[in-house]
Structure formats: C-alpha cells, structure tokens
C-alpha cells in the first residue's frame, strides 16, 4: 500500500468463517493491507488455532457449523492465555440483540455483512494494532 502504516505490517489476523467466499474476501482485503491472515472454517477449528498460536485480531462469523461464533468467543475468553485478543463478530443481521449477544459472549466489536473493504482494513488497523 502507498502509505505503509508501520503498525499494521505483520499483525496476524485469524478469520473464522464457514463461507469460502467470505474467507477469500477477508484474505484478499487484509493481505493487501499488509496483514498476515489465517483461516479457520468452523468454530472448533477456530478455537484450536486461536489456542495454538497468538493472533492480534479474531474475525468471527456467527453462524457456523460445529461451534457457532458465540460459543467460540465464550471458549476463547475462558482461556487465560488468549483472553486479551480483540475479537470482532460478523453477522448478517443488524438487530440490537445481536450486538448485545456478541458483546456478552466476548466480542469487542461487531460488523454487519457486507463489510466494505475500507471499513474492514481500517477496523483491522485500529483493533489489531501492531505491537506484537
């Protein structure tokens, strides 16, 4: 990118979404902005990856097979080692209850699909920081 914001480079983001198109979208946008992106296709895989490695931001889809986003976040927040990782949920609904549920289960922010590329990049820069 033209204005290489130094804090963005190298930050690692884990995208947990069962939609293959969505994953490709996240990867394309975020890698273009200098992030390192890894993927998980469901909650269980996401949990395993999040526990095994350190990430600077989790992007979590709500509706997923095996383990949904809410359960995943609850599980992550109860692991002391990864409790502090900022997490964003992405859902297709825009109801006020969804936000509350997301916050209660452990999200720090929530997005509603579709997420514009600019918004996604900015969000990642803000939330993932770069001091890893």
């Amino acid at each position: 990118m033209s204005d290489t914001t130094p804090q963005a480079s190298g930050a690692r983001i884990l995208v947990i979404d069962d939609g293959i198109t969505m994953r490709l979208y996240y990867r394309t946008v975020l890698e273009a902005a200098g992030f390192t992106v890894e993927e998980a296709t469901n909650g269980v895989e996401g949990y395993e990856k999040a526990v095994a490695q350190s990430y600077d931001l989790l992007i979590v889809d709500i509706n997923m097979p095996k383990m949904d986003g809410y359960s995943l976040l609850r599980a992550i927040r109860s692991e002391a080692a990864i409790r502090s990782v900022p997490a964003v949920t992405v859902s297709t609904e825009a109801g006020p209850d969804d936000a509350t549920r997301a916050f209660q289960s452990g999200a720090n922010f929530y997005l509603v699909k579709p997420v514009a590329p600019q918004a996604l990049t900015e969000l990642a820069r803000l939330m993932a920081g770069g001091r890893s």
Partner: protein
Amino acid sequence: MTTPLLLRFVAEARELLQAAASGLLALEKSPDDETIINTVFRSVHTLKGSVGLFDFPAFAKLVHAGEDVLSAVRGGQLSLTSEMVDLLLDMLDRVAAWIDDIESDGTLGPGADGLSHEMTADLRSLLPIPAGPAPAPDSAPGVAAASIDWVPDLPEADRLDAFRAWGTGAPLVAIEYEPAEDCFFSGEDPVNLLRQIPGLHGLEIRPREPWPDSASLDPYRCVLRLRALASTSAETVESVFRYVIEQTRLGDVPPHLLIRPAGAPNGGLALDDFLDEADALVEAGEWERLRRAVAALTELTSPALFAASSLRWLAAVLALPSPEPAWAKALIASLATGQAQPVPPRGTAAISADAAPPPVHGSAEAPAAPLPASSPAGGAAARLTPLARDILAAQRTILTLDLDPDAFTLRLPSVAHTVSNVLGGTVRQIDLESWDDAVESARAQANPGPMLAVLAHLLDGPDDTVHRAAAIDTGLAAQGELRTTGGPRVLKVDQAKVDALMTLIGELVVSKNSLPFLARRAESVHGSREMAREIKDLFAVIDRLAQEMQAAIMAVRMLPVSEVLDRFPRLVRDVARKLGKRVSLVIEGEDTAADKNIIEVLGDPLLHIIRNALDHGIELPDDRVTASKAPEATVLIRAFQESDQVIIEVRDDGRGIDPDKIRKAAVTKGLIDAEQAERMSDQQAVNLVFLPGFSTAAQVSDLSGRGVGMDVVVTAVERTGGTVSLTSVKGQGTTARLSLPLSMAVTRVMMVEAGGGMLFGIPMDHIAETVRIHRSQVRRFKQSEAFVLRDTIVPLLRLDRLLGIAPPAWFGDDDQEDSVLVVRVGNAVTGLVVDHFREGMDIILKPFEGILSGIPGYAGTALLGDGRVLLVLNLKELL
C-alpha cells in the same frame, strides 16, 4: 467482468444451493430433523452473507426472503409444508440460474428485479404476518388475486360471450396463469390445461417479458403469461389448476368492465333520430321497443364500425333479464359521441371491485439499522475516525453490560487490549498511559469505573484531548495476488484442449504399434536379430507409458454419474406429486465415473425412462395397497462399472409390463402380425416397446406418452455405442438397464478382410460371434441366402457385395467354408460373409470430413500401426 472473488462465489454458491436443495428434500421426509434444518438454513444464510459482497440486490433480496422463511421454520413459528418446499426450491432454482448468468456475463439476466420481487413476495407471504397491514382478501384461500386491467383489451367477441353468459347467471372469473419456466420438461402443456376449463372465453397468450433476439432465445423455457376469461366458478378453475395453483391467479370480473365498444370511428348511418328517443326509452324502461330499434340499426350498420360495436353491446345489455339503465345510457352516449364512454359499475356503484393491482403480501422488511462499520472513514473534522469512535463506544457498552465479577474478569483483558490498540500510535502517549493506569485500577477494584471514565473522556471530551487518527487509505489492491488456501488446486481447462490431448495420445497409441513391424523388418530384411530385440524392448517401454498416459488423460475427462443423477430427486418428487403417487427414489453408486461425453448423452434417456416408470410403471397408492404392496413405491437408480462398461439400472417396483397388452398393441399398430405375436416369447414382446412409434401407454398421458417412445432412448444410447435392455415381471416391476462404454474416445473394432485383401473395421459392439460354415449349409431363397445357427435362421449377406467391391477371384477358402461374422443390429441378427477374420483392436475413430462425410455405410477411418488406413463400417446404415 469476473474476478477471482466472483468465481469463488459462483463455485461456493453452487455448493450451497445443492446442499440446501438436498437438505430441503430430506427435510420433507423428516421435517423435525434439526440438523437438516440447520444445514439448510446455514447454506442459505452463508449464501446471503457472500452475495452481500457484490452488487446483486435482486439476488440478495430473494435469498434474504428464503432465509427468513427458513429461520421461521427453524424457530418453530412455521411448520414446513410441501408448498413451502416448492417455493423454496423455486427460489433455489432461480438463484442457481442467476449464478449461471453471473458466471457467463457477470450480471443477473434481464427481468431479475421483477422475478425477485415476485418470488420474494411469495416467500414472504408464507411468513407469519407480523402486525402489519393484512393482505386484502383473495378470491379464494391460497390463490393470489389476478389483476384484471387487461380484461377490456380482450377481443370484443370474447367479451360479448362472457357478458352474455354472465347475463344467464353464470359466474365470471379472470385467470392469469404463468407456467413455470421449466414446465415443458415436466410434461406440462399450459395451453391444453387452460383449455380444460369449461366456459372459456378469451384467451390471451403473451410473453412475460419482451422476446429476446433469436440468438439468445431459449425455446424450451416457458416465458408465457396466459390470461383468460371463463364463465365458471373459481372452484372449478382451482380444481383444474390444482397442480399449478401457485402459478395461477384468479380475479372476479365486474361485468361492466367487459363493456367497451371499439371499431372504426367514421361512417355508417345517421343515428340522430334513434339517439333522440333512446334515452327517453331507457328512462321509461321501454326495453322491448329499444331492442327492436337496436336490432334494426345493427342490421344496417357495417359490423367493423364503432357504432356497430356499440349497438352490439347495447343489444347485449338489453338482452339481460333486467337491463341496467346506466349501462344502456353509457352506450347510447358512446354512440352519440363516437367514443367509448365510461361504463359505471352495476347498481349504485357501491361495490367497486376495481382493477387494483394485487396487494403485495406482508412486505415486512425491517428498516435497516445504520451499520456501525460502513460509515465513511477519515472525516476531516474528527480527531478520532468515526470507526475508532464506534469501537471505543462498543468497549464502553461492553463494560456497562450487566456482568458479574467473574465475567468482568474474563472480558477486561480484551477490552483493555482493544482500546490500547485503537489508541496506539494515533493518540498522545499521555492518553495511552492514562488508559493503562485505568485498566490497572479497574482490575484491582473489579469495577469498570476508572476505564469508563477514560473512555468518556476520550469520546465525549473536548476535541483536543485526542489527536486525529492518521488518515486511512484503504481498498482492495487491484494487483494483489490471490492465494487460495487449503484443498487441492483445481484448474479449469477448456474441454477442447483435453480433447486435443486425447486425440494425440490416441495417435501415439496407434503409431507405437508400428514398432513391432519395424522389429520384424530389422530381422527379416536387414538380418539383425539384435536390433529387432532392442526395438521390441523399447516398444514394451513406450507401450506401457502410452497406456498409462492414455489412462491419465481419460481420467481427466471422467465425471461421476452424479452429474446427471443429481437432478432426479427433485424431478421424481415433483412428478410423483403431480401424479398423486408416492415414490421414494434411491440412488446408488453415484460416484461411478464415465467419460464426459457419455455422461452428457445420458441425461435425456434416463429422464425418459424415469418418467415412464413414474407415469406408467408405478401405481397409485391405493392400487398398490390393493396389490398388497407398500403404498410408497421405490425407484432405484443404480450405477456401477462392469468390466469396461458403465451400467445404469432404473428399477421400479410398479405394475410391470404386461406382455399380452404389448402384443395386442403391436398388432393393432400393425408393427407385427397376429401370428408373430403368438410365437413371441414374453421377453420378445417386452422388447417391442423399443420399436419406433410404439408407446406403452394405453392412452396418451400428459407426462410421457407424447408419441416419443423408448425408441428415442435406444437411439440416444446406441449413438454412444451402448445398449438398452428392459426386463419386467408383471405385477412386480420393471428394470431398464443402460450399458454404456466408459469412453467414446476409443472404439474397439474387429478387423475383417473382404474384397480380396481390403481391411475393414467392424465395431465390436455389434459382433455377436464368428462362425465358419460349410458351403453346403448355405440355403438359397431366390436372390437371398441364409443359414441355420442353432435353430435360428440367419440371413446371410456378403460384405463385398454390400460395399460394391469386386468379389475375389478365389471365392472362399479351399475347404469350401465361409467365414461368417454374426452381427446384431437393433434386434436383427445378420450373418456377414467376409474373406478372413483378423484381430480386434482399439482404435481412435475419425469421422469422415468434407465431401466424404456424406457417404453412407462408413463410420469413419482409423490409422493402423503400419500406416494403413482402416475403414470402419457403420452396420446400421449398411444393413
């Protein structure tokens, strides 16, 4: 324009659609299976999420509606009905068609908005209505109201008929019928269906959207809208349309709408005298005098004129048992002015059933809340970007959630981290330090107070507390390389390239066969046995490599038969429902693979066989119970590989084929005579259905019996070099068996010599056996010859005569035996006399091109290992 993301979306959407469709079908059988409901829901849900990345509003809207219905089903607010499944499947079909459109030209086809709107309304009408405006009452439950504004545009004669019928007390209903686009494939005949309505008057058939140009016109897609008037009750119409009720809309027609005179404006009689007194006659109710006057004037007026039309209508109004004065007056006014005057509704015009457009059902789309993430970034006035503010505000919200101390401990670290990250680098160090302090004391107190204070300061405080976040430049890097992750990489290759490879390897296989010739020459001509051995060794290596290569390339072209079988669960379900039969379809071996060409040819024959089974084979549930069978019939499609053939069996447990009926039908149709029928075995009788022009149906049914019989199936399958057989046990069911070659690329032929050393190839599929018969065994009947082969008389033909080449000087072998190739073409067995049998071999058949292509009797040519060209015969044409 297609981007990698769009391509990914297309592929994913297809998978999701397939998953959703099979889930729906499974759900119909076990409606309470939560796992399936969740799968279906999630498929549609994911699809909705993905489509949001692109600008396809019609697509998104429709999928959203489908998701809402599924969500209601999942939540237990709705219980799943077959109608609902129909609508949802329609939705999936529509979306699948759009996916095709997107793949081919990046847009949804024309009319997408309208379609989406309509289908969305249909789907939403299923939803439990949230306190909103109730839809206007329909003419009948379950049938949407038709708009009737087209009624006055029908031809006058139709309207007059309808009006007169109404005058005698018949009901009047307007019908709008939009057949499903694929209706031709499910055997529907929309016009014929409409014709079955008693008392049909006007019939108007128009395309729903303007016809595309002839190049892109798909004649198999029904895009018609049929409209008609009928003097019959809505119930009758509903009963005729009961299987397509969702494609039908009915509307009450107020009779005054029918009255609209039309015609050439000028000329004709001077009507002044009549007009002078007509109004007075109406006022006085002197109908009889008026009638006579109108009748006389009608006689004298040229029928094409506007005046004549007005008079006809006037006569029709006056012919009513109690003529409506307002209508008569309006028509008299029309006569006077030469222009159609508005005709008021009947009586006091209180019941104004106006031609309002049909109500849109429960459009309960919640107004979308402003999305926190979509606000534009980098507002110049703000110190923090709006998104940063939103994120900080969200952390405040989290901290103010009613969390117990334990939960607070769990949540605090990520909130602290998030805020630090947001502030990091963009804010003065002092803010960051104050935040860290606040986190520490909040942790100590187990109370978010200090953190909230800092957040309040950041969010609500004066602007200069926080520095402006760096302007953010974002966007998809156009040049960014897309890296796919996980799974095997898939290449999309043009089929022509694979075909070219196939041809090349075919030629390699054939030309490597010339090496043994070379080895022989090395030995016999050059006298080098050493060299011959080396060549043979080399040949073994090349032979193995070529074979492996051929197998590898064949594998590329192989597709699982599920490519064609996947559509049948849906088809069987729909057709069975339409026929009122209960059928469970079992598919086995859908992973069996065959060459792409074979798979492509397979679809239509299978479709036909399955339709036949459903239509003729399987009995109605009651009949099955009477025959002490389970009410639900089973159709089994079984695919498996048997040596180098793919076998596909379609087995039903229906009533089977009655050989006697077939015999009788064949005699009636003059296909065989009574004596032949007598002699025939039951199996032979069953095989009669393969004869062209034979239809098994006792009466032509709507579904399969369209004069297209099993002969079409046979033709299609034989074109691939396959065969069809039919076995049936009366009362127990029928099995149709398609045997297909694995690949059409390689043909196995037997070489024969005829005409004195000329080589010909005969496809192995046709060859039943080879025999040598003694001259004395040949019987002559005038010009023809025959011989007896195991109690059967087999006609004998000489290949060299058939081909018009000179017979060899020496006729037959010295021992006076003829080499006879017994071939089977269709059901006929024929003996072909050739000079010599030669070996069988695999060849790559090349059809004749150019001026040679018209020559009958030859299938094409193949190159032999020694460079000679082999002519391959087409026995079907030859015999």
